[in-house]
């Protein structure tokens, strides 16, 4: 008995509980916007249909384009629509709130809290992503599977690996947007950089077209950049395009970018925190 009590009070367990609560809060906050969620499902489904028809036309002219057959290409479209909100593929997200708190100075309060700023926002954002994957991902994917012939896997472990890959993709997406958010310490106004972030995320995550379809070296470069971890890699995992060592490599690619970008976020946060103290003094 005493042992489990000691365990409950261990700092690591307390921290885990805290960030678990923050994540649950992020989940709950977005689950309250029911009409907005329904509207999002509707929009994702409409865009899924439009994109799917354009892909059918393109793959009719060029079967096997980018290494996908038509069913795989259509599956890619609907995975993209399902992940649009959870992985923030268009670049929008919590960073605008963070920028606002930095601009107004409220961030100083956040920094005094017994929670780490990056971990707090990360837990919040993953909670949001979990809700949006359930609330905005499943229905468009199901509608897509009913309306078109998709190449969805039947093996349960492929779906589990896909979920793991999606989680890693959301982590990379968070790490990038955290860096974008922190720029507010220097730029104050985030509008310009948010717009650039959206542009880059839209082009380089594969939201418009799979990165394997990009011509020549542009495709290779795009597939090596972190945005590829947000959609291209999870989609290829679900489509079963990676096996064995290749699969491990694809997941390692996501982990590596997540670690590197989160570390960059920590470094930038440390620099920014010093700046807050200077301003506050």
């Amino acid at each position, binding site marked *: 008995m005493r042992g489990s009590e000691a365990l409950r009070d261990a700092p690591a367990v307390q921290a885990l509980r805290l960030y678990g609560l923050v994540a649950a809060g992020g989940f709950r906050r977005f689950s309250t916007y029911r009409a907005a969620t*329904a*509207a999002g499902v509707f929009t994702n489904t*409409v865009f899924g249909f439009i994109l799917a028809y354009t892909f*059918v036309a393109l793959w009719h*002219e060029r079967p096997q384009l980018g290494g996908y057959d038509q069913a795989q290409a259509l599956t890619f479209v609907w995975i993209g629509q399902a992940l649009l909100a959870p992985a923030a593929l268009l670049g929008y997200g919590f960073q605008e709130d963070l920028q606002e708190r930095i601009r107004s100075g409220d961030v100083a309060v956040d920094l005094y809290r017994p929670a780490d700023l990056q971990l707090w926002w990360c837990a919040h954002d993953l909670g949001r992503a979990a809700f949006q994957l359930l609330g905005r991902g499943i229905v468009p994917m199901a509608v897509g599977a009913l309306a078109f012939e998709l190449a969805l896997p039947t093996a349960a472990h492929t779906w589990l690996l896909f979920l793991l890959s999606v989680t890693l993709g959301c982590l990379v997406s968070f790490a990038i947007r955290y860096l974008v958010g922190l720029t507010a310490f220097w730029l104050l106004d985030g509008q310009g950089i948010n717009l650039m972030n959206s542009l880059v995320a*839209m082009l380089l995550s594969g939201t*418009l*077209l799979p990165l394997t379809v990009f011509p020549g070296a542009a495709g290779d470069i795009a597939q090596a950049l972190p945005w590829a971890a947000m959609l291209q890699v999870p989609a290829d995992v679900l489509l079963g395009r990676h096996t064995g060592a290749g699969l491990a490599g694809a997941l390692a690619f996501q982990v590596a970018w997540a670690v590197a970008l989160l570390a960059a976020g920590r470094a930038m946060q440390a620099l920014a925190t010093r700046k807050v103290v200077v301003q506050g003094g």
Partner: protein
Amino acid sequence: MAELAAGVRGYGLIVAMWVRTTMTYRMSFAMTALGNLLMTAADFAAIAIMFSHTDVLGGFTFAEVALLYGTTSTSLGLADLLLGNLDRVGRRIRDGTMDTLLVRPVPVFAQIAADRFALRRIGRVLQGLIVLVWSLTALDGVAWTPVPVLLVPVMVLSGAAIYGAVFACGAAFQFWATDAAEVQNSFTYGGSTLTQYPPTIFSKELVRGVTFAVPLAFVNWLPALHILGRDDPLGLPGWVDFASPLVAAACCALAGLAWRTGLRGYRSTGS
């Protein structure tokens, strides 16, 4: 008539105020306008990448698709520039600032439409126009007699009016569903994405839907098919190619009705 004049005047004054505000930070304005232009150019980049792999899509060449893209993007850009902030109705109802608009001596519609007028959205219009002008120079086989020449501006302006009506209907819808602003995006941004591509690649049911239910086909498909000398997939009589202004007028009347009904049914949240 007097109400309309007051509305336009009020709209103009509020817009002028926001433009002055924007122009205080010229560099910031230039950057965000350019960013808007680049952002909307991304979907054209996707079309260009598609045509790097093929010569035709649904039987249409790159220049022909560019004509469709340029017209619908310019139309949507104009509507978005003039009325884009109508989608803040839901937020205004939620935070209670809707009530302050009701007591001011300017029509509510004009106040909301002009609220936070974002001149940077001119970037989308410019991008659409650039593609449109390029497509006009790149099209072969079009005899530029007076009729097709006139059809181009008529199509762009009618299209803008149709999108504007959709924006207004979307705003009216928010009197009932206060946090469903995104539904409107399906019809505006979704509609623009749809009409960027030739109608031949979509199913007949979908084409019928955007011809008769939400008449987005009149934004550019029907007049553009006339310019390109192609038959429309539904086999409609030839005169419908010129019906865009009429359809636009009908849409605007319907949107006006929807807006009035919504506003009349509005109950403040009291917050």
